[in-house]
């Protein structure tokens, strides 16, 4: 009887060990993975522009897909985009412009990110009613987003491309201050 119980115990332990091999993720680890952000997104409408509909719907979609979204609102200066991206160690900077006179601010965001020394640390996305893939290519933005689903899929694939799918492993935006010596 004692031997039988012992055998059962051994079998139980062996079962647990086998289960660990077959299902290596523990409950705690699994929970942690679920909560981990896919990446931090700074999102806003550019300075001089108050059209928020496109930005809002994309912010919601990204949030639902597991990105941490920091929505700066509308009428946001290029300097604020860059400062917030740096402060929050952002992975993405998404800007939206819907006017022919405000889309040029997206160039300034690219410039400000470079001036802050973090252009190569973030993935930039541009959207808005007049924005096209050609515009994105011309100004050097990484992603052109046409809508919420598009934004999510492009953000995910850009992330995969840029950091081999490991969330939060890229260098922080603060680690490099490229232009500090020039004060640009």
């Amino acid at each position: 009887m004692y031997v039988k119980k012992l055998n059962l115990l051994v079998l139980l332990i062996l079962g647990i060990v086998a289960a660990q091999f077959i299902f290596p993720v523990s409950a705690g680890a699994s929970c942690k993975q679920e909560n981990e952000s896919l990446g931090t997104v700074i999102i806003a409408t550019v300075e001089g522009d108050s059209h928020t509909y496109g930005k809002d719907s994309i912010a919601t979609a990204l949030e639902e897909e597991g990105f941490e979204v920091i929505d700066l609102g509308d009428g946001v200066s290029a300097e604020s985009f860059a400062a917030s991206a740096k402060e929050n160690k952002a992975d993405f900077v998404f800007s939206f412009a819907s006017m022919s006179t405000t889309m040029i601010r997206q160039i300034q965001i690219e410039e400000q990110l470079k001036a802050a020394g973090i252009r190569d640390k973030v993935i930039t996305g541009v959207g808005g009613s007049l924005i096209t893939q050609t515009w994105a290519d011309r100004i050097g933005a990484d992603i052109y987003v046409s809508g919420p689903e598009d934004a999510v899929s492009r953000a995910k694939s850009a992330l995969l491309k840029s950091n081999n799918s490991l969330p939060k492993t890229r260098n922080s935006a603060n680690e490099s201050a490229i232009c500090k010596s020039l004060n640009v």
Partner: protein
Amino acid sequence: MKGKRILVLTAVFVLLILISTSASATTLYVKEGGGTGEYGNLQEAINAAADGDVILVREGRYSENVFVNKSLDIIAKDPCINNTVITALDPEYPVFHVTSDSVNISGFTLKGANLTYGIYLDGVSENKISNNSFSGNWRSIVLKDSHENSLENNCLSNSDNGIWLESSGHNIIKDNKADFNRHYGFYLNASENNTLQNNCAFKGAIGIYMENSSCCRVLDSETSNNFYGIYLTGSRESLLENNTANANEMYGIYLGNSNGSTLKGNIANTNHWGINLDSSFNTLQNNTMSGNSRNFGAYTYHYTGEMNNTIDTSNTVDGKSIYYLVEVSNKTLDSDSNAGVVYCINCENITLKDLVLQNNSFGVYLYNTQNSLLEENNISNCEHGVYLGNCSLTTLRNNDVNLSEGDAFILSNCRNCLAEKNNASNNMAGIWLCDASRDNLLKENTVTLNSWCCIDLGDASCKNTLERNTLSGAYEGIYLYGASEENTLNNNTITASSYGLFTEGCGNNTISGNCISGNDVGISLNLNWTDGTNSDYNTIYNNYLNNSKNSEDFGINTWNISKTEGGNIVGGPYLGGNFWASPEGDGFSESASDENGDMIADLPYNVTETNYDYLPLVFEKPVEKTENEYGKK
């Protein structure tokens, strides 16, 4: 005598100083790898040099970040700039960082500063940067707090930016070529009194950009195949003369908040917008705009600032003259005027007749202009056809406005204007009354095939009358929004739209005598979802409704008046409610009983659970009519 001797001695002393100074200027040589009497790199030579020396750099490939803190001539000896190449050793530092006045740098190819600058003039003056070639830099030449420098005949390509000025004035930027730069060819911020002459900028995002940089001159330059050609914002009293801005995807030349600027002899062809002003007190002469989607534009709708420009008819759009009238009275422009676009600011009694206006931001733009008439004009392919801002007692009659990207007619804050018998087709919207336009009459207009709505009233546009208009083929036949109240919609015909009439937070309107048929929804009275205002207290009666769905009512509205003698919309003897038909022929009014034969149904019609038409109209029964006439069914 003594004075003369002192003078001679002083002159001799000065001469001696000059001779000794010139004698001390030496030439230092730099050669790749060094050599006898030659330095192996530029920095060593600069360190060894004194103010006024010349450094001649022999052909070769150098990798350096050079710091120049002395007044020197640094010249590539080989006349071919491709043969003397300096690449940034550390891309985080400029190839040349100049902190001294009177430095000449000439004849080099400078590249690889992709995180900074090719040449950085840092708080200096009287430097000359000439005959160099730049590529692969973040910014090729940067001036900060630097004045009275000269940048000439440089070739700036394949970088993020060409020439970049911040807080730098009185510089001459001449004969430079910037192409394939990702962002700006020439960028000026807070930099006043600079002269840009005979430069060109191709295939960048913006050719020449000036922000808060007043009193600059851009002359004889070409900016083509960019997204934006020449873009000024906050740059007052600028002069743009004899420039060419062609084939840019957005604006050829744009002036935003750059008052008091002068544009003379510029050419802007085949851009999306040729020349566009969002500024005042500007002077335009002899500018040519041709083949642009929108040749000329000034201001947007809702604009209320100063519009006092001097723009004469020497300015042309597709070969026709721009008429920009300010404070003019009693003038007629007809087909003899060769007008291509017309602006009337603060005018009185203007007649525009028989004009053909195409391809501009607005065909006709009237602001604060009264007692005027637009008649039998043909306007097409504009952003908006006719704009009336803050106008009164003005008539729009028998005009054709087609193919506008936006609205055919906009009346913003207008009073007592009449729009009648106009045709508007294939626009985004037909007639838009906005910004508290009141007491206007829109009648007998035909508005068809608009992608959005035929007529819309918004922003507290009240007490207007819409009657006998024929509206078809849009998302909404008539759209009321933004507390537009006490309007009368009478005897209009609305067909083939998603909504015949759609209201959003608008009450106290009277809707009667309209034939609304063939729409998905006939009349839809809705809440304004943003501020919660409902569409209440509208009175809807004597309309003929034959739609997939005749009504939606989310407010408290009245769908009939009390039974009143008078011919109704279906020929009955009394006014009361509405006629409720259906495309299948079995609508309420088509099947309701009418025992007393007054052609009003015996029972009310449930518009919604809480709103009723208590006096729905009915036809004279066709079955009874057949039996009466022929005695059999």
